[in-house]
């Protein structure tokens, strides 16, 4: 992926900004230009809060190139509070303790880097909700 393409997508990836259908109220991530539910083209940017629960997950032992640094890791579908499901990497979690329905929250992490001299790509991941002492 080119540097300009990363740059165009970075803000949405940093802050989990999707879209909301003005006609039927459905929220989407990533953003859509046409609502898949009612086919309306009247959409506005929507900021998700970043809280959700694990809908499904799998452990990745053979990751795509660039992600070896953090293997093994969990890839998950997270059902957001607002009612959309996003694909994400889980971080800061014990792989043996992940459960469907487990509450998770958004964090910003390093996704990958283009070698030693290229850009560092940051984006959201989810982690188990931090216990407050």
């Amino acid at each position, binding site marked *: 992926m080119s540097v300009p393409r990363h740059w165009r997508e970075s803000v949405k990836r940093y802050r989990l900004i999707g879209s909301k259908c003005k006609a039927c109220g459905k929220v989407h991530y990533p953003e859509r230009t046409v609502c898949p539910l009612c086919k309306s083209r009247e959409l506005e940017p929507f900021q998700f809060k970043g809280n959700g629960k694990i809908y499904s997950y799998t452990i990745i032992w053979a990751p795509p190139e660039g992600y070896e*640094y953090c293997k093994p890791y969990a890839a998950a579908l997270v059902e957001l509070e607002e009612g959309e499901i996003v694909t994400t990497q889980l971080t800061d979690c014990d792989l043996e303790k992940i459960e469907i329905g487990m509450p998770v929250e958004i964090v910003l992490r390093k996704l990958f880097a283009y070698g030693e001299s290229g850009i560092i790509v940051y984006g959201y991941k989810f982690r188990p909700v931090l216990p407050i002492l």
Partner: protein
Amino acid sequence: MKTIKDIGIVGYGAYVPMYRIKNSDIARVWGNDPIRVPVKEKSVPGPDEDACTIACEAARNAILRAALDPKKLGAVWVGTESKPYAVKPTATIVAEVIGATPLINAADWEFACKAGTEALQGALGYVGSGMSDYAMAIGVDTAQGQPADALEYTAAAGGSAMIVGPASEALATYEASCSFVTDTPDFWRRQYEHYPKHASRFTGMPAYFYHITNAAKNLCSEVGKEPNDFDYVIFHQPNAKFPMAAAGMLGVDKEKVIPGLISPYIGNTYAGSAVLGLAAVFDVAKPGDTVLCVSYGSGAGSDAFSFTMTDKIDEVRNNAPNVKSYIGRRVSIDYATYARYRQKIRM
């Protein structure tokens, strides 16, 4: 030094990574006495963490406590010596992540372990002069010590963000500050080197203690107080002993230092150290309590600050995770895992 306008800290936020390596394990690997170590354990950033990601979580926590629209920030300044890029500001990424761009000043500040309080001095001046209503200063590091070097036992990761704003909204009002600086080569890292060098015993008396005590004394004489008049005192924490020794030299009761002393549990978070100690004190201080915070950065210098807690602290304290929660969230890793996470094995 004082400001023209009445200002204070309107929000603060901390972050400490969850991995820990025991000092006894580092000693075991290098054949040293596992009993005579500077701290119990130190924090280690995960493989997907760096100074930027740590700064982002601390910044988000500070925004939560301040309940502030990030667009109102006039500056986001990140003090660190572990910038992910040698050239490209960390602060622009942080500003973008929290939604504070584009009408904002963003920059990285550098002054070894006092880069965070240096940025805080700047933010106090920026808001105190009326150039902006709010400014955020972050102290953060993912410090690296050379394998087997004395610094490997303490070089840790963590950070803390402070939002400066009007005194009327402050959880701690600002009274005065002092910066005390000399050219002292106690610790340095040359361009393209992975690890820093230090002048061993030279780091104590002429470096840490000289600057800390003088910054504290000069601030105290400006505000007409003795160091022991404060309810809480935070010093930069390169290990567990130095802050206590500094307290002794300044006549400060040890129990005033304990609440802000976190190095025994997480090590030295460098530019994050004094400001994380300050956050830990904000987590427990009561309205009316007075706080003295003194940083130290090699090279060398200290910044000292005087704050008074307001009623607002009780309202906002629980709006974000406290320092204790981050310290309590710990996963012990062995030296081999630590070496992998910190990329100490070069392939």
